[in-house]
């Protein structure tokens, strides 16, 4: 028995911004969901099931919000699932939706990730002080900065590589009308001069806090064949997790990341990712993670990922492997949706529907998300042609 071929039939996003003050939580989600349905030329009745993902419920203060959202998302009388796998959740959610098609349980599934961070303060939600523990680590930056420092010392990367990634992604964002940050006049010097938050991480090298939702309609082979708009075909899906803080753990290049990548490339029959993949959307909440993941995923030799940044390989303007053409997490970060945006943007590229940030003739692309202390990984490879 083999898996049912799975197609991405429709994609919908909301304009990411720090506060979507004009909508309710349901309104935000419905905007993305309707755009995805309209792209797929379907309506609620034709959807068999809904899969929702988002980061901690504390962000909006609605526990298990899929219950409240069921009636806003066409799910009444249908199955609805809610996924939560830390920062990778948007990616994992898309993979659970894909598994409902691959298993032939359903024919058409709506999947959506969202976060309305403006309802509260995300930094608080992430660092609720726990009794009896000494709180000295401020936010995710405090956790990831030592790991970045270790990468720098291991690879010998020049100090400004992180700034180069941040500048490149913000330039890419100018070509994506949905991106949160549109910094038209930003200069590289301004990126470098930005205040240091968690040495070596500058403010300019971190992601914004956004409101937003991203939705996709996935379908089986027949619905992919019959679709009016171009579809993307799923060539591989993989997720991996590993524990945190155990002896000998490679935090810079976690084994779970390497194994997840090996699995997804194997499924897609890809032996030389750099040559065979045309566009990449990887989860980069802190700029340095671009070269780190390029190495871990096998797009670059170990300790050489930073060279791809330095020589422009990852730039949309003529690079061999454009990375985060959408502007990436560094330009838009509605946490629960951020992983799904990577997956959706990868699909937009092979559908040829990425507008101004389209990579010409992209045939195969890679979507990626990670979460926890770089412990949770979700990846997919999508193609313009059937696998």
């Amino acid at each position, binding site marked *: 028995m083999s898996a049912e071929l799975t197609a991405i039939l429709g*994609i*919908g*996003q*909301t*304009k990411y911004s720090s506060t979507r*003050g*004009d909508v309710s939580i349901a309104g935000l989600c*419905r*905007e993305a969901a*309707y*755009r995805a*349905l*309209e*792209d797929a030329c379907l309506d609620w009745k034709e959807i068999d099931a809904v899969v929702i993902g988002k980061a901690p419920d504390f962000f909006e*203060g609605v526990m298990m919000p899929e219950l409240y959202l069921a009636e806003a998302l066409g799910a009444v009388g249908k199955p609805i699932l809610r996924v939560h796998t830390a920062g990778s959740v948007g990616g994992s959610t898309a993979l659970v939706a894909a598994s409902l098609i691959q298993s032939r349980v359903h024919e058409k599934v709506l999947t959506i990730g969202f976060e309305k961070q403006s309802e509260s303060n995300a*930094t*608080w939600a992430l*660092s609720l*002080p*726990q*009794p*009896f*523990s*000494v*709180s*000295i*680590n*401020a*936010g995710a*930056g*405090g956790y990831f*900065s*030592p*790991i970045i*420092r*270790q990468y720098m*010392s291991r690879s010998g990367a020049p100090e400004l590589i992180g700034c180069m990634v941040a500048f490149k992604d913000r330039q890419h964002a100018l070509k994506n*009308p*949905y991106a949160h940050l549109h910094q038209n006049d930003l200069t590289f010097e301004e990126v470098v001069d930005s*205040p*240091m*938050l*968690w*040495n070596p991480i500058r403010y300019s090298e971190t992601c914004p806090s956004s409101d937003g939702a991203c939705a996709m309609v996935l379908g089986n082979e027949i619905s992919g064949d019959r679709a009016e708009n171009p579809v993307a075909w799923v060539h591989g899906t993989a997720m991996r997790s590993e*524990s*945190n*803080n*155990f*002896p*000998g*753990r*490679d*935090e810079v290049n976690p084994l779970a990341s390497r194994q997840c990548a090996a699995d997804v490339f194997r499924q897609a029959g890809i032996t030389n990712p750099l040559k065979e993949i045309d566009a990449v959307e990887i989860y980069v909440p802190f700029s340095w993670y671009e070269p780190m993941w390029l190495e871990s995923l096998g797009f670059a030799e170990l300790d050489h990922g930073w060279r791809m940044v330095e020589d422009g390989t990852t730039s949309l303007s003529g690079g061999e492997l454009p990375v985060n053409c959408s502007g990436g997490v560094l330009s838009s970060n509605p946490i629960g949706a951020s992983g799904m945006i990577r997956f959706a943007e990868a699909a*937009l590229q092979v559908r040829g*529907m*990425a*507008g101004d940030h389209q990579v010409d003739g992209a045939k195969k692309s890679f979507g990626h998300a990670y979460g926890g202390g770089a412990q949770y990984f979700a990846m997919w490879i999508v193609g313009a042609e059937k696998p």
Partner: protein
Amino acid sequence: MADPNFPPASLSQEVEIPESISGLEPVRSVRSPIRLLYDFVPSPPVQEYLRAYSKKKILGHRSPIDGAVFVPPRGVDPRHGVLIEESVELSDKGHVGNFCVTHLPIPGRDDLETPYVSAWIHLDGASVGFLGLVAGCENDEVHIGMRVQAVWKEEEELGNTAENILYWKPTGEPAVPIEKAGNRAWDQTNE
């Protein structure tokens, strides 16, 4: 790709606001604060760990599978998924496995002057690091592999808390070589 400046077609019909309120300043947001109380009781191994601090002792947990020592104790070995019952007393000396210079204030820690250094402290005898503040030297003197020792509160201020350790200060001993520092130590001693 759809234009984000226009609503999706299905949502393009405007809502008809009743005339009686149509000219008034509309409500755009509501406040709904949430306050939930939890009774936090640490697990027995953590209770033992916290209590030991009042005697200026740091306890770890030793895995029955491979002898790896975890601090603070987690009650389980995270690689093998088995319960750990054996406690071991650890030295209050170790080395900096890795560190972060933070320029942001932490909510609830007004006592910390920024920038400050938080570090993964790898105690002698432990197989993983745990977080601590490094002080007693300039921030830019802190480096991976630097040997440190705990600076404890005064006897009369000791309680059942990890806060008994004010910070970690350099000992001046020769540094642990970078390739043997932090998590890297385990692979080299056990493979």
